[in-house]
């Protein structure tokens, strides 16, 4: 078959909503786009362990400590499925890891913001995981089979995390005045960074067009952002907190809220590496990796000696 014929089969599968599987022919751009998207997603899970891990030893109740520890572990698990899904596209885990550690690969910018108080842990679960789910629900139906299946599993766990985050914020919002102030402060700091998670506005999103065509994405950044705001404002009101946006206003005609755009200069700056935690996050990953080198070497050396022992 020539390339044109392969392409025809590929397009037909997309048209029928069939999955593309690892051994199927796929256009090189499709493969590249997916490797970038899936590996970035995996890196985000792994780096995402750090801001929340920051509070495990300080969680204020035994139950909160168990919930947080389990949540951070789930994120590591998500990283693992996603690395495996990316490997099925022909890139090795070492290559991906190396790209992360050298700063070549990107991960979700949200994790370059610091977790300053305990309320940030609730806010991350409620807002950041809430925004992530909105993106990820759509990805459960993405055209690449292994990615889609990984997302089905991840979405179940993320919804659970989001409920836990909301529950944690609820305790604060209905707790002592100091707790409520802590919750409002967290909302003030996380609101706009969370809106940035949906990516640049559609008018400036360079990767969206192909992604939609290939069914790697199924809705635009702005559509998802609007849906998130509509859903979250009601929760903020229930909690008796205030969205930190004086332009937020219900728009009857579009049956949705009008709201201010996040500061896209800040967004670009954090992506460039200038967030307050960018250097620390990368340094933490590098430290764990380099301090673990002797452990991995010992396991490998021991593994190599085993068959000799058995043979002897």
């Amino acid at each position, binding site marked *: 078959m020539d390339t044109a014929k392969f392409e025809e089969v590929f397009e037909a599968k997309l048209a029928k909503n069939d999955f593309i599987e690892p051994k199927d022919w796929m256009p090189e751009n499709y493969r590249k786009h997916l490797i970038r998207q899936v590996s970035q997603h995996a890196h985000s899970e*792994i780096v995402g*362990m*750090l801001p929340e*891990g920051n509070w*495990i*030893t*300080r*969680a*204020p*109740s*035994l*139950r*909160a*400590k*168990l919930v947080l*520890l*389990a949540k*951070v*572990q789930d994120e*590591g*698990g998500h*990283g*693992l499925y996603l*690395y495996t899904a990316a490997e099925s596209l022909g890139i090795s885990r070492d290559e991906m890891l190396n790209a992360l550690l050298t700063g070549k690969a990107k991960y979700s910018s949200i994790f370059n913001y610091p977790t300053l108080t*305990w309320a940030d842990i609730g806010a991350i679960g409620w807002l950041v995981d809430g925004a992530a789910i909105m993106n990820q629900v759509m990805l459960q139906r993405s055209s690449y089979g292994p990615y889609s299946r990984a997302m089905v599993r991840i979405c179940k766990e993320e919804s659970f995390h989001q409920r836990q985050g909301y529950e*944690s914020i609820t*305790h604060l919002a209905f*707790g*002592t005045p*100091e*707790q409520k102030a802590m919750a409002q402060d967290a909302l003030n700091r996380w609101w706009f960074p969370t809106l940035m998670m949906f990516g640049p506005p559609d008018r400036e999103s360079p990767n969206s067009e192909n992604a939609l065509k290939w069914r790697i994405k199924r809705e635009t950044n702005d559509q998802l952002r609007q849906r998130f705001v509509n859903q979250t404002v009601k929760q903020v009101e229930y909690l008796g907190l205030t969205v930190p946006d004086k332009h937020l206003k219900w728009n009857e005609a579009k049956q949705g809220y009008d709201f201010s755009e996040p500061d896209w200069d800040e967004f670009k700056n954090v992506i460039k590496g200038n967030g307050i935690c960018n250097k620390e996050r990368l340094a*933490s990953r590098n*430290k*764990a990796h380099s*301090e*673990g*080198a*002797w*452990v*991995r*070497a*010992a*396991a*490998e*050396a*021991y593994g190599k*000696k085993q068959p000799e022992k058995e043979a002897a």
Partner: protein
Amino acid sequence: MNSNEALFNYTLRLGDTSLILAQRLSEWTGHGPFLEEDLALTNIALDILGRGKSLLEYAAQIEGKGRSADDLAFFRNEREYFNALIVEQSNGDYAKTMLRQAFIDCFDLLFYTELAKSKDSVLAGIAAKSVKEITYHKRHSFSWIKRFGNGTEESASRLQHAFDELWQFTGELFEMTETDTILIKENIAVDLATLKPMWEKEIQELLREAHINIPETTFMQKGSRQGLHTEYLGFILAEMQTLPRMHPTAKW
């Protein structure tokens, strides 16, 4: 000391040991030597934290003074904690964390297997659930000790160093007090003297496989049964208790 007080002290000792160990292990989360190992160690921390929570809940109930498990965890001072000294020791490198874990897993498997036969049905229930978990933990830590002892020169030397730091804290695991005496008579507590030779045999075998020599005599530290600790505990509690102490009336 009446038997209710003894049961409270005993359960608190077990709960504190689990909680402080879990606190230490969870420091590794997100910083493990590779992803699979990070997940495994976090899983172990979760099991041990879950056990600590159950034990402290039971201790609170035995005490019957209206304190909750969280009150016990977050509102007691250094001198009121009774965890074994070995669990509060710093994580150090992965050899030290794993050797500490191997010493404890070996002890815990023997201990909780016996405690599962306790006349106290709550302790017996917690113990029976724990035995399944500890069986896996022990397989994990023991296999790392063998890898380190037989891996590279560096891993063997790190393991030896870890041993030199930790061995002095193992003797205390078997120390018994009036609390134990009272509860052994009632078939509630485990006679630690009977576990000691079994623990020594298994650990000697493991260390022999890992090429670590056990010195003929070592001075063994003790103190935790009286709430006397190493300097580490104060920092662990300062970090762990900060929020509840700042907001004493808050619910989380």
